[in-house]
């Protein structure tokens, strides 16, 4: 995973709440067995509409998505994160994210930033009136900057450290694998096993 420290780019306003994972990438686009190429399904239903914000030339090179509340509700498909990343997004800003989506984003290095609705509204207004407005998402400083505005955000220290170092979770867990082996020895014998197969 790439390190995420700070990113500056232009941003696209997605003025919708409850953008679920079936909107981010419909199920029919989930059939690949790789982690790339999912940009073709990103917001597939909406992208056939020339008026959809992502289709406007002014937002073509945007790398930050600014969405309404409850972004990423629904399924656990990490393909939603991959689709956003494959398309070129580095960060998503919203006032509320669904839990699984947020977790997935933090595994893959897509930064999800929670800001109060009023701040989201302010960013929307700015990037709608001038799509070339530069927005900086700074994980090190834990803030989003736009012109003279500085919006602070919270993120737990552990996740922040992992993202800034670009560390993979499995490698970290393997450092504690002796504890896992010890725990396994203490598990009750009545716990079910899938093998051998019983019928």
């Amino acid at each position, binding site marked *: 995973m790439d390190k995420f420290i700070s990113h500056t780019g232009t941003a696209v306003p997605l003025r*919708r*709440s*409850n953008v*679920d994972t*079936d*909107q981010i990438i*419909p*199920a*029919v686009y*989930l*059939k*690949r*067995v*790789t982690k790339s190429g999912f940009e073709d399904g990103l917001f597939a*239903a909406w992208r056939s509409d020339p008026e959809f914000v992502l289709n406007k030339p002014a937002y073509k090179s945007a790398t930050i998505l600014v969405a*309404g*509340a*409850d972004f990423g*509700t*629904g*399924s*656990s*498909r*990490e*393909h939603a*994160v991959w689709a956003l990343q494959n398309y070129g997004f580095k960060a998503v800003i919203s006032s*509320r994210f*669904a*839990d*699984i989506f947020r*977790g*997935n984003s933090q*595994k893959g290095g897509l930064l999800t930033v929670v800001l109060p609705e009023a701040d989201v509204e302010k960013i929307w207004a700015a990037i709608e009136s001038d799509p070339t407005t530069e927005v900086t998402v700074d994980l090190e400083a834990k803030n989003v900057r736009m012109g003279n505005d500085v919006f602070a955000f919270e993120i*737990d*220290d*552990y996740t922040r450290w992992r993202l800034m170092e670009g560390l993979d*979770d*499995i490698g*970290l*867990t*393997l450092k*504690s*694998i002796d*504890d*896992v082996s*010890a*725990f*396994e020895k203490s*598990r*009750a*014998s*009545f*716990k*079910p*096993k*899938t*093998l051998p*197969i*019983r*019928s």
Partner: protein
Amino acid sequence: MGKTLAEKIWADHVAHSAPGEPDLIYIDLHLLHEVTSPQAFDGLRLAGRKVRRTDLTIATEDHNTPTLNIDKPIADPVSKLQVDTLRKNAAEFGVRIHSLGDAEQGIVHVVGPQLGLSQPGMTIVCGDSHTSTHGAFGALAFGIGTSEVEHVLATQTLPLVRPKTMAINVDGTLPAGVTAKDIILAIIAQIGTGGGQGYVIEYRGSAIRALSMEGRMTICNMSIEAGARAGLIAPDETTFAYVKGKPHAPEGADWDDAIAYWKTLKSDDDAKFDKEITLKAEDLAPFVTWGTNPGQGAPLNSNVPNPADFSNPEDKGAAERALTYMGLTAGTPLKSIKVDTIFLGSCTNGRIEDLRAAAAVIKGKKINKDLRMLVVPGSARVRLQAEQEGLDKVFLDAGAEWRNAGCSMCLGMNPDQLAVGERSASTSNRNFEGRQGKGGRTHLVSPLVAAATAIRGTLSSPADL
């Protein structure tokens, strides 16, 4: 201070903890399917890792599988590749798999319980958000993404931050014709699709206790639709009776030890929940959705709401967009809405009890000539059981289609999809735009409402027949 059930299960599974880090939680059962696992196995292969506990892992094929002509190769080459990839990965890594055509194949959340692999006090994960279903057994069960699937395959653990706990109490006796599906749809309408975010929900109260295991699974299944990653119900005699005798249930002395442990699995009387909500069972009625998220629901006896009546501007905007997408006008009685397709199935309502309930309504009648009805058992085992009971005949005689097991039209990854503008009454869990096919319009309903709607042609409950 006492502990909640979720806190007890959590405490029993911490394999490693350190200040400032998430807890490392041991996973008792890992369920796999073809859509969210290929990239995880690929990751293992690249890193030269193995599956740590193949004996706590099981795979089946469900999301992509066709429900017709299952003896022939899968027609869609992309779906076929994904299913073939799972088969290859299972063989290479030594993972048990139930493939299309096997009696134990089916929706992963139907398969785990019917094999007796889902038991109280366990931690259960799967790369599928409806893993919350297994919470019905008093297990901590939740959906994970593909990176986490890889993590569990490699280490049998997950680093997790402890969730908050919420109690939802449903007390009293349900009115006739009101089912588990109506309870959960009413809960989601009340707390919203973000209401459960960050929480594990424990469903409590006499109306919950009175539910069968199938009903409890329906409720826990849709916890995710309220934003909660997991939902659970304390195990009791109903749970024990369901597990007993299943292929992987404990036997002999193990059974006694298991029961002794399982009986400790309830929230202490002095446990404190971070949030508590109470509903009266007597106030509930058959419930259907009118919009494009599961929180946009209303009693079947009411009208399509007017967006102007929503005080929150975001809810108002969402309602306006939903009515446009759904092709509905505010004030229309829900019961006058004509549907084109009935889908009876899914991990929410594709179990034997659901098929029995719908069949009892339909028996001896014909479905409305203007619609089609797909009956898709949750698993091949459920299908066999239903056929033994003659339920297939009931559906076929009424003019419905009797299909093979899988996720099917719940998410339309296989050929079972709605056409643009087509309207369904569906016993599944999500009414998102395009969920059942691009441009398709979904009303979430219980199996009873699905059956009554199939006969009348408009959204209906058995009381309307």
